[in-house]
C-alpha cells in the first residue's frame, strides 16, 4: 500500500537542462540506423559509456541478427555491471 505522499498527479519541468550540464564525453552515433528497441538500447549504451567500443561494418543495425545483438547487449551490460530490470 503506498501512502498519499507517494502519489504524484501533476506536471514537472517544461524545458531542457542548461548546456552546462550536458555530458561532454557522450558520443552520438547519428549515422547508425536504429530500427528496433534492442538497436536503441545498444546505441544508447555505446553513446553513454565511451569505454564500450564496438565498430560496426554496417551502419544499418537491422543487418545484424537478433541473437548477435542480444549477445552484444549482454556483453555491454556485463562490462557495465548492470543487471537490467524488465521494462519491456
Amino acid at each position, binding site marked *: 500500500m503506498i501512502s498519499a*505522499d507517494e*502519489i*504524484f498527479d501533476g*506536471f514537472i519541468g517544461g524545458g531542457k537542462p542548461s548546456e552546462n550540464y550536458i555530458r561532454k564525453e*557522450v558520443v552520438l552515433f547519428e549515422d547508425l540506423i536504429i530500427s528496433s528497441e534492442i538497436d536503441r538500447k545498444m546505441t544508447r549504451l555505446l553513446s553513454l559509456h565511451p569505454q564500450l567500443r564496438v565498430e560496426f561494418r554496417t551502419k544499418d543495425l537491422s543487418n545484424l541478427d537478433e541473437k548477435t545483438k542480444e549477445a552484444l547487449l549482454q556483453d555491454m551490460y556485463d562490462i557495465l555491471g548492470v543487471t537490467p530490470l524488465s521494462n*519491456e
Partner: protein
Amino acid sequence: MQDLLKTVQILREDNHQNIDASIIRLSRDFAREKIDNTWWSLSETPEEAIQAEGDSHWKWEDIVLDYSDNSLYDCIALLSPEGYLEGAMAYQFNVESKLEKGKGSIYIGWLASAPHNRGWLVSRPQYRGIGTILLYWAVIESYNAGLEGRISLQSLPTASTIRFYESKGFVRTDSTQPAMGLVDYELPKSAASAWLKKTEIYHDKC
C-alpha cells in the same frame, strides 16, 4: 500502431481496482490527437483554473518532435484500456549528475498526468498516481542505461510536490531559474535503489 514498451498496472480512482495499461512510445500523431486536441477539454473546469495549470499551453506534438532525434532522447505515454493517454513524459539520458561528479543522470524535461486525473481540476479523477508511474519508469530507464537510477528534474516547489519528492528521497540541488520559481531536484543512486527494491513488480529481470 504505437510501440508497446511494457504493460503496467494503474489504479482506478472510482473502484480502487488495478487495471492493466500500456507504456508506449509517443508518436507525433498520437500526441496531437490524444493530448493536444483532447486533454484540456474539461467541461466542468473553469477556464481560469485551466490557465492556471503551468502545462496547459504545452504542445506535446512539438515536444515529441524535439525528443525523437536519437537514442539519447525518448518520449513515452501511458495508454489506458479505454484508449486515453493518462500521462506523458519526455526525457534525455545525457546530463551530468549534480550530486555525484563525473556521473550521469536522466533529465526529465516534460512530464504530465492527464488533467482529467488531477483531483483539483475535476470532481471525479479517473486514475491516481500516473506521475509516480512515469517517474518510476525513468528510474528503470536510468538504471538499465548504466546511470544507476539517477534522475534529475525541475519543478515548482508546492507543498504537495515537496512532500512527494521527499518521500522518494529526491535531493534539492539548486535553483537555476529562480525567476520562474523552479527548483532543481535529483534522485541519487541510493534513493533510486531503495525505490527499485520497494516496487517488486519490476524485479523480474530481462
